[in-house]
C-alpha cells in the first residue's frame, strides 16, 4: 500500500514535468533509494506498473540505484557505512548506530521521447 502511494508521488512529479514541457512518452524512470528507506523493491516495481497505467509513463522501465546507508556510531563516534540497519559498527563492533544517510528516495531523471 505504501509503495502504491510512493508511485503515485512519482506519477505526480512526472505529470508536473509533462505540464511544463512536451513529453509524449516516458521510456525510463530512474530512482535512487537509500538502503534504510523503508520500501520493498519488488512491491515498488509491481506498484509502478499499476500506477503508471493511463499516464505518459505507462509501460516505462523502472531503474533503481541503491544509495549507501551511513550511520554515526555512538560508541566510537565515527561515521560508518553499513549495509543493514541493525549491523554492528564495522570499526569498533558497537551496537548503537544512528542513521545519518540512506533514508532518501529521489527521482534521479527521466528518459523521455
Amino acid at each position, binding site marked *: 500500500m505504501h509503495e502504491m*502511494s510512493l508511485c503515485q508521488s512519482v506519477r505526480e512529479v512526472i505529470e508536473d514535468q509533462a505540464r511544463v514541457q512536451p513529453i509524449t512518452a516516458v521510456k525510463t524512470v530512474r530512482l535512487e533509494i537509500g538502503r534504510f528507506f523503508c520500501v520493498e523493491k519488488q512491491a515498488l516495481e509491481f506498484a509502478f506498473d499499476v500506477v503508471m497505467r493511463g499516464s505518459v509513463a505507462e509501460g516505462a522501465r523502472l531503474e533503481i540505484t541503491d544509495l549507501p546507508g551511513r550511520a554515526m556510531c555512538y560508541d566510537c563516534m565515527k561515521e560508518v557505512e553499513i549495509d543493514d540497519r541493525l549491523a554492528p559498527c564495522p570499526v569498533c563492533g558497537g551496537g548503537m548506530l544512528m542513521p545519518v544517510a540512506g533514508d532518501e528516495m529521489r527521482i534521479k531523471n*527521466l528518459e523521455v521521447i
Partner: protein
Amino acid sequence: MCTVCGCGTEGGHDHSHGDLHFGHGPAGTQVAGMDQARLIEIETDILSKNDRFAGANRQMLRGKGVFAVNLVSSPGSGKTTLLCKTIEAMGDQPLAVIEGDQQTANDAERIRATGAQAVQINTGKGCHLDGHMVGHAMEKLDIASGSVLFIENVGNLVCPAGFDLGEDCKVAILSVTEGEDKPLKYPDMFTAAKLAVLNKIDLAPHCDVDLDLYEANLRRVNPGIEVLRLSARTGEGMRQWIEWLQANRDRKGAQSAERNVREEGAL
C-alpha cells in the same frame, strides 16, 4: 475548491463533525505521442510534495506557538486511551486532536466525549496520514495559540515513519505485550521518534516481559531516544508524560514568540 492545493473539495469527502475521507478519487489519464528520446534531470525527493504540505503546516503551527506531536504505534498499543487520559490530566489547558484511521470515526468520538475538539481523518485505502490530509484537518480545528496538537496516526509501524506532517516530533507508543524486539523489527519508526512511551506497564508482571530489554532495544536503533514507562490505565508515569508535554510546549511557545518578534522587527 481547496486554496492550499487545488484538490477540488475541501480535502476529501466531508461528513458530519467535519470528518475527512480520502482515497476515493480515480486516477487521471494522458495520451502519448511520438518524439525524440531525451533525458530530463529531476533530482527531486519523491516525498517533496508531501514535504511542502508539511512545511506549510509547520509554519502555521510555529506562528501560533503550537507544539504538535505525531503519535505513532502499531494498532492496539493504547494510543487513544492514553490520549483520553492525557486530555483529562491536562484539564483546561488548550489542546486539539486529529485522529487518523482507515475507517470509522470511533476514535474522534471517544476524544470528543472528553470535551476536547477532535477531527477524524479516514485515509480510505491509505496506510498513513500525510501532510495534505493534516493541513485540511487543521483548518477544521480552532487551534489556540500555545496549545498542544495531538495527531494520532494510523496504527502502523512502517509507513508513517516516512511521512512528515509538520509536527515537532514523533512519539512512538509501544505496549509491553508487543515483544521486546519490536524496535528491532521496525527500526525506522523508533529511529524517527524523539520519545518512546512504554505503555501498559501494569500488565508487565503478568506477561514475563523485560522492560530493561525494551529500553536497550530502543536505544540500539535510536541512541538518543527518550523513554517513559507508563500505564494509561493506572496512571503510573502519567505525571512525567504530562510534564514532558508541557516542557516541550512551553519551549516551543518561547521560541515562536522570539521568532515572531524578530520577524516583526525585520519588517
